[in-house]
């Protein structure tokens, strides 16, 4: 842990040891990060190719951060990294449970996340660092799961608040044909209802396969996109719901009418972005980049935050007992800082982490929602996503 610092020291410089370093062995607090890789098609843009250490790099930074604090608390943190496929995920999870792991960060799609949550039962706390499904926070909610990743509803609401502030309420919604695209489209419909936008036209861009990344791919695309978007009802903006990454990235500048694009391309709602500089973000980006030698992705941020939640609970309770930590994380006393300008807390009705949503283009953070004019009686962050009165979540047991 002190290795990096030792390396910097010149002969004449004294290394000051923290006097509070514990004499007895530090308490070990273990977690696992289980990443379930989907062997799907590569992304449209090669810039989006997933790095080998996706998510894991965020975990490593969180463990460094937790350990630095742990040095003063007599606590030592560890995260076991496991990469699985959808076929091997259950077996890998079984191994982690057998090993007595009580905190498991999961990076998987909606369906796999739900299966894993049911497999875990009351043996561990699952921290969802990828799946955005509103069903996971609604009718399929599980008491053992904390949703660190924002839900589709939160992302859609964050974007919609900004578009209403911009006075762009007439939307041309284009969604893909995959289940996750349909789910995102539904989130946009709900957001439009909630904040008073109108979907004046809606189309489905069907994924028919094809050689989208061949040498002449862009020639095809250049011809197809304008044709696909022509003769739409008068609209202010094109909203794309394309989680499967089939068409949205091609939309900006190729729409029939000269309109801005948002959603899956253009102005994109996200949990985090490597250009974010506000609220101490710069030093977080610096720390991540010097550790991982690349820019941060949302999966890294969400995994970092999941493990920081455990670390923060351990610091505040001064305990390494998983039961004490789980209870504290779910209590109203818990909050954690995540470089978003305010304390992040956990909703008691669906275990979603409340958080601001960044609205980003390729190179900058354009805005951060909630927008100022959307007020709320308890937390302004609850203007994003499904609020207490609307929730369909009913936890089976409140152990």
């Amino acid at each position: 842990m002190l290795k990096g610092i030792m390396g910097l020291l010149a002969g004449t410089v004294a290394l000051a040891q923290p006097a509070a370093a514990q004499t007895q062995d530090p308490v070990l607090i273990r977690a696992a990060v289980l990443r379930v890789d989907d062997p799907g098609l590569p992304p449209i843009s090669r810039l989006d190719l997933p790095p080998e250490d996706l998510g894991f790099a965020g975990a490593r930074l969180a463990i460094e951060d937790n350990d630095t604090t742990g040095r003063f608390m007599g606590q030592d943190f560890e995260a076991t990294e496991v990469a699985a496929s959808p076929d091997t995920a259950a077996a890998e999870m079984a191994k982690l449970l057998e090993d007595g792991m009580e905190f498991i960060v999961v990076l998987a799609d909606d369906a796999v996340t739900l299966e894993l949550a049911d497999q875990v039962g009351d043996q561990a706390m699952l921290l969802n660092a990828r799946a955005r499904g509103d069903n996971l926070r609604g009718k399929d909610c599980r008491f053992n799961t904390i949703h660190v990743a924002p839900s589709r509803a939160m992302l859609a609401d964050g974007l919609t608040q900004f578009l209403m502030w911009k006075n762009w309420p007439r939307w041309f919604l284009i969604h893909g044909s995959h289940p996750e695209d349909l789910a995102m489209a539904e989130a946009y419909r709900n957001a439009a209802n909630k904040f008073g936008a109108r979907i004046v036209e809606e189309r489905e861009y069907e994924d028919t396969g094809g050689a989208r990344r061949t040498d002449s791919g862009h020639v095809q695309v250049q011809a197809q996109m304008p044709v696909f978007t022509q003769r739409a009802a008068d609209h202010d903006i094109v909203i794309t719901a394309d989680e499967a990454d089939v068409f949205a990235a091609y939309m900006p500048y190729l729409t029939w009418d000269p309109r801005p694009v948002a959603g899956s391309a253009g102005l994109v709602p996200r949990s985090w972005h490597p250009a974010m500089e506000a609220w101490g973000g710069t030093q977080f980006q610096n720390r991540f980049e010097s550790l991982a030698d690349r820019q941060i992705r949302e999966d890294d941020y969400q995994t970092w935050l999941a493990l920081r939640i455990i670390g923060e609970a351990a610091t505040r309770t001064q305990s390494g007992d998983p039961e004490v930590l789980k209870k504290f994380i779910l209590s109203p006393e818990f909050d954690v800082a995540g470089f978003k300008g305010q304390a992040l807390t956990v909703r008691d009705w669906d275990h979603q982490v409340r958080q601001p949503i960044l609205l980003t283009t390729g190179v900058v953070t354009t805005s951060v929602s909630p927008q100022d004019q959307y007020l709320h009686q308890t937390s302004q962050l609850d203007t994003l996503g499904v609020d207490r009165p609307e929730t369909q979540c009913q936890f089976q047991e409140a152990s």
Partner: protein
Amino acid sequence: MKHLLSATTGLALLISADTALANRVFVTNERSNDVTVIDGETFEVIGTYPVGNRPRGITISPDGSELYVCVSDDNLVRVFDPNTMEELHTLPSGPDPELFVLHPSGNPLFIANEDDNIVTVVDTETHQMLAEVPVGVEPEGMGVSPDGAVVINTSETTNMAHFIDTETYEITANVLVDSRPRFAQYTADGSKLYVTSEIGGTVSVIDPATQQITKKISFEIPGVLPEAIQPVGARVTSDGSKLFVALGPANRVAVVDAETDEVIDYLLVGQRVWQLAFSPDEKWLYTTNGNSNDVSIIDVEANEVVRSVQVGQQPWGVVVAPD
């Protein structure tokens, strides 16, 4: 154009170098990479001087002869002649220096290295690095006890105030405070230590003798969202009667009765108010307002904002030359 302007005003400053250095106000501008100098009598801008990349923390030697600036992206501290704003030399600071505090004697300098989780101790005369003290994640706030025996560092992600012995450079105590502690300020008699928490929204009042938190000051402003109340800079009058706390995006400075630690008033200043500095006679308090690119000047006695002065881009730190 800007450089030309600086050069001209620099000349003007050189000519008047011997007159009234006292009370000059130095403001670091994080984005425009320069320092704005304001006349503490007339509140006019005297000039703007390039100082290096991403200047943040700024302080001045007790005799007013050396101005120290943390130039974070240059990974060092630059030392200027406050009369001429000419660079005298640099000090090794360790990577990404953000804030620092001078020992009351003027030596050494204790620097928080935000990216590396260390506090670097530098001799201001020999320019040598004396020690590196490992602290928590993202060290930022630096305070020093009036007798110079203890330096406080706050670590923003670890959420602690670390007590560092200035003789041995060892940490003697760690006090857990609310989220993202930004600044540490002792009272002049050394009886109390104030630590601000940006995300926690509080100021912890710590008894330095026992290292226990005796009280937490919280803030409530009608019409301002609680999330926007983010305490950062803090200064207490030398008679221990008033504590001023910059509340960041709440665009207010809180006035606290430092006897009872109760909030008396909130003063509307510029946007995203960050750091504070008194004039030597404590008649005025200067605030840096990062988003409105100005400095507000507060009448300390009257609890009133009397002026605002436009400075460079994203003003961050402020120091006033001693009498």
